């Protein structure tokens, strides 16, 4: 039995994989729907932890520190609460990315801290400016009421929530842009082996929109939860659980909307499901992210994945391709039966000599590709796994 799996020229020219070159840390984040939630769960959890720290500080430690004259003025409570949460959310968002990319600890903390600091101080600034403007937003007889730093109001604080949300997105955006610029220009904290390429203005604008808009939406949802739980007696009627819910929803929404785990942290793999050579797998991607094509067949030399001919595999049976945008496809190169199977769907890719080009179809995580017919059948699956596996 031939057991070797040879790689084509493209594969053999790849740099040797190492943790320095392929920094990904998402063993526990499979390429399923959960990957969209993981960052959100982490940021939401951090925001909830931030809420607890505030509770601990104000309720538990406040009286003691007040006696030591180390307790902040009441007028700053709102500033510190919103700015602290904005800073923490920004910090966790960038820290999550740094962890996933296995950035060096120094750079990981530096960029996360930068994002947190930008969000914190910009929120403080906007908060103070807005509070100065609040009296001008009300009539003279209500000026005293709205200037009361104890007033529980969504009407006069919604803008503060929204501004804090925008700032919580702005910090990570600026930190990510600085990281990418430094990596591209000076080679600092390069994620992976390749320096990032410059993005277009439209990409930058889109990224800015996702960050600030996502932060804005998340904070506004948090404010809505804060108001609902704090206002209505049937839902609690005080700001204890309301503030906890607000912090979590803001953090969760921020993680969900501003930055998700990008596809470039995953790589496509072809894995044999047949008994012969079961479990053998090869990556479709190249380490540098360039487009590539992997061939599967029984031709004994030069193919990326060898499969035995007596199991229904032609010499050059199928190929798996990936472009720069991480779109994966499979092509049927043989007149032998080639079927892609997925839930409630079968796609026949057998080569039709009357057509000018082979048939191909987009691949999805978990697709099975069945080659051959009857008892002479081979089966492979397509998997998206963390790039670290390469």
């Amino acid at each position, binding site marked *: 039995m031939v057991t070797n799996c040879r790689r084509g020229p493209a594969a053999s020219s790849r740099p040797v994989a190492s943790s320095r070159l392929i920094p990904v840390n998402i*063993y*526990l*984040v499979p390429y*399923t*729907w*959960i*990957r969209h*939630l993981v960052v959100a*769960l982490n940021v939401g*959890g951090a925001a*909830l932890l931030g*809420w*607890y720290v*505030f*509770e601990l500080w*104000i*309720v*538990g430690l406040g*009286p003691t520190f*007040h006696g030591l*004259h*180390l*307790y*902040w*003025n*009441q*007028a*700053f*409570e*709102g*500033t*510190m609460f*919103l700015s602290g949460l904005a800073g923490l959310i920004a910090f966790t968002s960038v820290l999550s990315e740094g962890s996933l990319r296995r950035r060096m600890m120094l750079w990981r903390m530096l960029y996360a801290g930068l994002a947190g*600091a930008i969000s914190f*101080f910009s929120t403080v600034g906007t908060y103070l400016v807005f509070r100065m403007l609040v009296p001008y937003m009300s009539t003279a007889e209500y000026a005293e009421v709205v200037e*009361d*730093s*104890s*007033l*529980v*109001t969504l009407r006069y*604080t919604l803008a503060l929530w929204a501004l804090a949300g925008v700032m919580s997105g702005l910090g990570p955006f600026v930190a990510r842009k600085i990281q990418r610029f430094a990596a591209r220009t000076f080679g600092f904290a390069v994620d992976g082996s390749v320096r990032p390429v410059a993005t277009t203005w439209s990409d930058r604008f889109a990224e800015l929109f996702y960050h600030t808009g996502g932060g804005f939406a998340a904070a506004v949802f948090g404010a809505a939860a804060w108001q609902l739980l704090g206002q209505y007696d049937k839902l*609690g*009627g*005080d*700001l*204890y*659980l*309301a*503030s*906890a819910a607000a912090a*979590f929803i803001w953090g969760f929404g921020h993680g969900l909307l501003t930055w998700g785990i990008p596809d470039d942290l995953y790589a496509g793999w072809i894995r044999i*499901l047949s*008994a*012969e050579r*079961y479990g053998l797998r090869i990556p479709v991607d190249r380490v540098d992210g360039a487009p590539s094509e992997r061939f599967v067949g029984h031709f004994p030399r030069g193919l990326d994945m060898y499969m035995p001919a007596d*199991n229904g595999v032609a010499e050059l049976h199928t190929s798996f391709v990936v472009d720069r945008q991480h779109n994966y496809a499979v092509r049927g190169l043989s007149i032998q039966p080639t079927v892609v199977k997925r839930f409630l769907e079968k796609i026949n890719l057998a080569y039709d000599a009357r057509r000018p080009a082979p048939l191909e179809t987009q691949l999805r995580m*978990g697709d099975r590709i069945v080659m051959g017919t009857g*008892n002479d059948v081979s089966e492979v*699956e397509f998997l998206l796994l963390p790039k670290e596996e390469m």
Partner: protein
Amino acid sequence: MRAGLRVLAVFGAVLALLVACQNSVHPAPVVGSTYRIDDDRPDPESEIFLDVFTTGDECARQKINETTICRPMVDRGAGEVHLSFQFRDRDTDQPFFIPLSRDQIMVSHDRARQESYELIPHNPRTSGQLYVVIIDGSGSMYENDGERIKKVYKALMSKEVVDAFFPAADGKTGVLLLQFSNELTQLGGGDLKVIQDKAEYRQLVKDHLLVKRGGFTHLYKAVREGMTSVLVDKGVRQFIASRNAQPTLIALTDGFNNEEGSDTCGSNVPRLAQSLDVVKKARRAGGTAKPVLYTVGLGKRYRKGDKPEGLNDSPTPTSLCGGYVNERIDSNLEVTGIDHVSLAWLAEAGGGVSFVKQSYKGLAEVFLTAAAKRYEWFELKYRVPDSIWHRQSFDVRISLLQGYRSSTEVSLHPNPWLDAPTGTKPPGERWTNLTSLNHALTVLMPMLGILVFLNYLGAASFNARRAVFRRAKPRRRKP
């Protein structure tokens, strides 16, 4: 490097400015909540200061051990505020012990009078008290076979009243029984003697109260003397000084102040004004032993209408007598009823309460009220109808409605963003208890647990699905 340090220094300075640590004690954090409380602001017109304990330190300074119930407590969810307070002499700043019940105070939350509140007295006073009972001995008291004086007799001899006058055999409490018609004298005559024994008290009342006397009713004079010369009598003064006793005067009459046969109601106006001045002066000079004057009318009111509102108003013929300014008192007005307006005026100036009673039981209640226990400090709990009243800074005003002129205002500032764990109300209890901050952990830890679980759920469900669909197990080889 230097530029980096400069940036850091600027950030540090900005942060320090922003954090802006509070150097003053107030507004102080309310323990167990996210509220803050300002220092209390006693009304400068108060006769005695009502001092609200705004911090645990203030409780400790007054040597109150129950710090957890002495310091303020707030729960926004329940709309409850718990405050503790003590009365203090405005001149000496010494604690001032008074009897106080729920109906003697008014609680307002941002100027809205509250109905749902409870007053819990703490630490009954153990220092002395002197009850000065001034009984009308004029002829009218003995008319109809002594009907009225017998009511007084039964009231004074009832077990409850005797027990209230002599709560413990520690010699700290004394009673002075005086009677007046034209002159104010010791019941039975002789030098003033403070009675400290139940048996002696009963004997004195039994022997002398029902002995018929006569004469005019010099009520105002008796009150004036009771508030002044009686209290500086050598024996009385020694009793007060040695036991730090609080004098409580109870003046009892069945008619009008009537000094001459030609007196009309209007004749009493300048006399009453003079008496009020004397009473007020005596209370101002009293230090911590301010005499308190209760007045009791035995019978019914001679006319409709009460004393006009207003503490510092002087009596006028109309305000005192209504339409009876020129009506003769002797054999005319005094037959109709009691001058309840005069009595109210005197009691108000004397920091006490005026009563009109017809039965001996009613009289006994008055004596019991006057002899009520005094307490060192009080705990006040109140609840606003809706927690929406806790959504901005609010002022709590506590005012005394009788006894003394005293009120205090204190401001509370809720946190506009956060609350401490919501309080819990045990079954059958009226008021909420604070929930420990540990409760926040019971919110945090399960939530974090769920988040961690969800983090693993993706990988777990992915592997489970592959196992179910036999992706993780080799297929059988062909035979």
